């Protein structure tokens, strides 16, 4: 194709930008790049905070920007800018070319122009009109904090809502040309309870993707009851006694153990870094045979679902582990290039200022055959982790995460609540110890922070039993 003269024009959302995008991509290829990708974003977000019986914060924010990525051999250069003019984008291309030290135009590549646009956004454009107004959000958040006012011991009540609207255009030199709209809404409740020297926290977060009406349907009374009850049960809890013990992890957000302990280690980013013990274990047993684990971006409405990933690929359902055998890694474009693992529609980024990386979407352990009671009954002394906090995984595969609501198990029965527990372990050692999976799979929304920023994900699992794990406490 021919390269048209640079003239002053700018990317416009909702309009055809094909010629402009082709010009910019052609410019990169003509300078010697092997591959050029443009990720253009328009965001319009708002958040509302209710504290006690007042709205204390309403924060709208919006912005535009572009992330430009160029590959040469297996190296890549990434430039982000707020300047969406043709000149600005071409300047960014030049900068990326210079960064990669590309001097010879010897790529022998021909850019044949962009494909016909795959427009995933057209059916979603009305979403923006259909989301609740700030007034609606404020009213319902105040109802929810009022619902938390059940007891004098509740000293802090908070409700928060955020809505993220993201319009994206993705175009690359392999012809990919797609547009999409993403709408994420999340609402959370927090309480702090206090009685003399005793203190406890309770929190829950709910979230959805692509359901404008979701917040209106949210059962704030039920959510408030859950949070309140959790904080009351933990208020007088003793600190857990540290040690090695079997644990039962609850369903929903209990899935954070798999996310942290294993999921991150199955991202090709970790293979590239040499920080996963599983890089050479494809088709080998890495977990107990009761474990089947899945990562997908297709469950309707789930927080980690996508129509296309941030590299323009439709997400697939990836069975990562089947009956304990490692079957697949989570891969993006760079991951495929550098590790050979095929892309899975998992190239994700927080926004235009990050290059996409292989990231989890909706990740969960598949359901098994046992009831929750059977799992608990199988333990003579251990810990039931009903609600989990955040966690992380280090460069050696060691993970940790906090238990927000825990109960001791004694002789197969739940006994007293305990607080202050942290679960720590090593993915390679813990995965074979997940010996029983319940039949009550449920998912929960969350945010995952990693190399390409914070992305919306779903974690999930049925109740599971881990035969032995280190519980940090006092």
């Amino acid at each position, binding site marked *: 194709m021919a390269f048209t003269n640079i003239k002053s024009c700018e990317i416009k959302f909702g309009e055809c930008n094909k010629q402009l995008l082709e010009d910019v991509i052609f410019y990169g290829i003509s300078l010697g790049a092997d591959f050029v990708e443009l990720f253009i974003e328009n965001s319009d977000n708002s958040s*509302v905070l209710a504290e006690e019986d007042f709205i204390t914060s309403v924060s709208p924010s919006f912005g535009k920007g572009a992330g430009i990525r160029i590959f040469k051999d297996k190296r890549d250069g990434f430039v982000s800018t707020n300047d969406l003019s043709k000149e600005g984008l071409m300047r960014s291309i030049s900068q990326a070319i210079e960064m*990669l030290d590309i001097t010879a135009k010897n790529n022998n590549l021909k850019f044949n122009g962009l494909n016909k646009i795959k427009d995933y956004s057209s059916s979603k454009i009305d979403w923006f009109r259909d989301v609740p107004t700030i007034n609606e959000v404020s009213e319902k958040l105040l109802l929810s904090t009022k619902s938390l006012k059940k007891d004098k011991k509740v000293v802090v009540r908070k409700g928060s809502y955020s809505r993220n609207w993201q319009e994206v255009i993705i175009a690359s030199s392999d012809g990919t040309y797609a547009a999409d709209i993403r709408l994420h809404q999340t609402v959370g409740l927090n309480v702090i309870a206090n009685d003399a020297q005793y203190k406890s926290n309770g929190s829950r977060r709910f979230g959805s993707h692509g359901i404008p009406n979701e917040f209106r349907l949210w059962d704030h009374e039920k959510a408030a009851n859950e949070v309140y009850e959790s904080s009351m049960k933990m208020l007088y809890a003793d600190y857990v006694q540290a040690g090695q013990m079997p644990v039962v992890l609850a369903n929903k957000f209990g899935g954070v153990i798999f996310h942290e302990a294993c999921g991150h280690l199955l991202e090709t980013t970790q293979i590239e870094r040499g920080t996963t013990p599983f890089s050479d274990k494809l088709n080998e047993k890495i977990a107990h045979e009761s474990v089947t684990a899945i990562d997908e971006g297709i469950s309707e409405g789930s927080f980690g679902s996508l129509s296309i990933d941030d590299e323009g690929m439709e997400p697939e359902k990836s069975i990562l582990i089947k009956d304990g055998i490692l079957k697949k890694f989570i891969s993006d474009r760079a991951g495929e290039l550098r590790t050979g693992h095929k892309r899975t529609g998992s190239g994700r980024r927080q926004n235009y200022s990050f290059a996409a990386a292989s990231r989890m979407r909706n990740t969960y352990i598949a359901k098994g055959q046992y009831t929750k009671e059977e799992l608990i009954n199988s333990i003579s002394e251990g810990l039931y982790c009903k609600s989990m906090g955040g966690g992380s995984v280090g460069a050696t595969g060691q993970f940790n995460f906090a238990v927000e609501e825990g109960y001791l198990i004694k002789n197969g029965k739940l006994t007293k609540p305990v607080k202050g527990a942290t679960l720590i372990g090593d993915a390679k050692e813990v995965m074979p110890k997940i010996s029983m999976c319940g039949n009550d799979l449920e998912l929960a929304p969350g945010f995952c922070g990693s190399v390409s920023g914070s992305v919306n994900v779903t974690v999930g699992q049925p109740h599971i039993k881990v035969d032995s794990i280190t519980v940090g406490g006092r």
Partner: protein
Amino acid sequence: MNATEITTQITNIANILNIDKWDFGASFSNDYSVQVDRGAAKQLKASQKNVVTLRVWNKENLVGITTTSDLSETGIKKALKQANIASEFGNKNEFTNFSPLAKAPIQVKEVDKKNPSGIKKLLKILREAESKLLDSHDAIKSIPYNGLSESFYERIYANSEGAFRNYSKSQAALYLYARAEEKNKKPRSSGSVKLGYGVDEIDIDSCIKEASKKTIAHLDYSSIKTGKYLVCLSPEAFLTLINAFSSIFNARSIIDGVSLSNKNSIGELISVPALNIFDDGLNEKNISSAPFDGEGTPTKKLSLIYQGKLENFLHSESTAKIFNTNPTGHAGLGSKVSVSPDWLVVERSNACSNLDIKLDHTNYEGEFVYVEELNAIHAGVRASQGSFSLPFEGWLYKNGKRCSIESATVAGDIKYLLRNIINIEDEEELTTSGISPHLWINELSITGDE
């Protein structure tokens, strides 16, 4: 666009929209970073970002806010309009105003702003650093987390009453985290971070040596028996903990009911008398110092704990008004203005006669756990309850010999910890988050594999 141009643009558009009272904070930045993998450039990154946060007051003196990266006339107009709409939902329970110190003189550190070194130079330096670190020991197989970056930025604050201040800076950072492996042993990892005003000012050799030394030192490890131990916290570990529990000093957290302190806590003895803690954003060793905060209030040195007593809280304009005092230069501009410390300096006070000064991490021969670095702060700290349970990297010392601890957590209560400091060593060390000596704590819970 520069500081004057954006201020003029906002002034003009606010006039057109009949918005009389406004302020804004802006940041214009250019960042460059490189990562390498066994000599090859892995990811090279450049970013140009302009962000403005605008606040607008309506006729009822309620404030609304918007953040935007669209600095075109249309973008600013939209932002002012949205902030105006948001002001209808302004907090009627707590009125916010301009900082009374937004025009007070500021102290700008005389530091040369460096010029960009360029990606090629960054890459060359990082490649060499990676190579030297890999060569430093046979067991070091990779440097999975590495990066060299330089940032050039300008920060601006202005308001409709004529306050206007700005500063521009350059900053560079190098981090090297090595991964070492030996046969039949678990991989071990550790690293080092160094900052400077420019790439040429970073002490690269010491970053390499420190990363290598720390990683190798952990190669011979063993598990630790769960129990209570005498613990020595490294300067970095103690600063990490104090920052995690900085809600103790934070007036915003006190008002919100999430602090261990209350409005009347000033003067309370919260630690051993031997401890002083200051917040000193303008300290000459603080590379990231800023001369004013998000509300334009000048940064200043503030005593937080003096001889064990809580001496001051950190304030924004609105918290200061509630506490009947002045803002302290610790505000972050937002719909709800946040408050946070800048850079902590910990020292041994003069009231140190009760300290057990024979406890010195370099020569003490009794048994103790040395906590070098605390991890997963976001998961293991309950700031509102005062409790923590955190994985750490460290050693068990016994009879003058040390052994790296395999995997363990340290747990406790911050109030207990502050009141059970039994020694504060003499020598202070500079870290990326402040300055502190080593501190010794009696009886902290350690959970190990045994």
